[in-house]
């Protein structure tokens, strides 16, 4: 077995759901005197353990609200798990929300550098990659236009192009293969296939069962924040469909 590049060790993520959201100082003071800060604990994830080998593609499936996106955000380092821990070695590139760091007033090329800096790349690296990012995005002369004038397709195309050019060791994707038109989608698929060949590990969150079966070596089925099943993609998909149909209940 190859060495693990990402290890999740019984990760749990707790959110406090406040019944009344305290957003102002006045409310906080009032509550303090009333001694009535009521909240519920909600575990979005509990006891999630898995590892991701170098060059492995793992699918994460599950119903809406089962904790898939929370898991990705923990992998991306946005959330720190409430319990357990998650270790990564290498560069994690989240393809979660494309173009998250774009400034609408800046041009495409300026945003490439800004986004690169946000993702932790140095100037030298960015200078080297800039050309191929522009080329991959197929934006042509629009690259010197402020991105506020972009169509939504152009926007995500640029975002995708940057994200795949940061030379990640782990790529986190959340339903992003459906970017742009048919031709661009094909290009994205090819790029991701190339990544897999080059030993990049991928965590693929998706509702497309075909994609899971086609791309993943392994799949994890999440249900209510827990790992309901982990194993071959075909079996995971089967379990998931059974779960949806109400024919199978995971023994959690």
């Amino acid at each position, binding site marked *: 077995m190859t060495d693990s590049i990402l290890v999740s060790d019984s990760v749990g993520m707790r959110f406090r759901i406040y019944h009344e959201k305290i*957003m102002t100082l006045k409310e906080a003071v009032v509550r303090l005197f009333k001694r009535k800060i009521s909240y519920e604990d909600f575990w979005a994830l509990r006891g999630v353990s898995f590892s991701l080998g170098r060059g492995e593609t793992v699918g994460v499936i599950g119903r809406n609200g089962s904790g898939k996106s929370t898991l990705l955000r923990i992998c991306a380092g946005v959330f720190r798990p409430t319990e357990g821990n998650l270790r990564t070695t290498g560069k994690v590139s989240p393809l979660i929300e494309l173009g998250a760091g774009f400034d609408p*007033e*800046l041009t495409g090329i300026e945003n490439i550098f800004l986004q690169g800096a*946000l993702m932790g790349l140095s100037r030298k690296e960015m200078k080297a990659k800039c050309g191929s990012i522009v080329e991959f995005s197929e934006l042509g002369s629009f690259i010197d236009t402020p991105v506020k004038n972009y169509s939504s397709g152009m926007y995500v195309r640029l975002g995708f192009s940057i994200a795949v050019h940061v030379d990640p060791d782990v790529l986190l994707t959340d339903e992003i293969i459906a970017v742009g038109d048919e031709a661009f989608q094909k290009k994205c698929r090819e790029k991701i296939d190339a990544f897999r060949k080059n030993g990049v590990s991928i965590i693929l969150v998706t509702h497309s069962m075909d994609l899971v079966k086609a791309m993943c070596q392994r799949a994890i089925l999440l249900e209510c924040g827990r790992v309901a099943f982990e194993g071959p993609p075909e079996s995971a998909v089967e379990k998931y469909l059974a779960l949806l149909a109400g024919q199978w209940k995971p023994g959690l």
Partner: protein
Amino acid sequence: MKRLYLLQHLVARDLKVRYKNSMLGFVWTLLNPLLMLVVLTMVFSHLFKFESIVNYPVFVLSVLLPWNFFSQGVVQSTNSVVSSGGLIRKIYVPKTIFPAAVVTSGLVNFLFALVPMSVLFLLLGGRATPALLFLPVSITVLFVFTLGIGMTVSAFNVLFRDTQHITEVGMSMLFYLTPIVYPLSINGKAFGPEGLRSILRFNPMVYMVESFRLPIYEGTIPSPTHFGIFLSCAILSLAAGLAVFRSLDEKMIYRL
């Protein structure tokens, strides 16, 4: 190192975007304090009849730019983390970078505005003295002070959005509680009512004013004690900012 590179980008973005859709663009950096100076001079030199203050415009000018840098830095920092919330929720970015970028771009603006302002200073009859060489020190300390306060308020604003309104009102209050348009004393006699003076005793901005007004207007440098107080305040404020971020950093994400 990479953080520094990111900071540089955020600052450049700030400067580019700030004046992008205005006709006069960067000129506003210079025009803004100039117009403010005209207004303040017209209002206060007539209202208070500071006849014994030689060259009132230079008196005000000496503190105006540092004050603007400080107050704008703090007010704009307040919202900096909150307004980047969308980004922070998606990719991991060290959050202190946002107030730091705001205050740094404020510093760049400040330094640019210094050039035409020194021309104005000479035109108004100000004298260039060796004491002006003290200004880089004052500016550095003011930068640290502003950064610390900016970090603190930006963190609090994530938890309580009131902070934004409090800093805005607080800054206009502080403007009058700081000897910017009036002196601490006239001809050796303390200026203003007793109430104001007892507040001024506890206002660290008094020492900030001294660190700029003495070199620019009087041609002397501040006493080590007074400058020491200013420096201590700056270090304390930066320590407070770092401490607040350290203790609130992980809570912030749930409030953005």
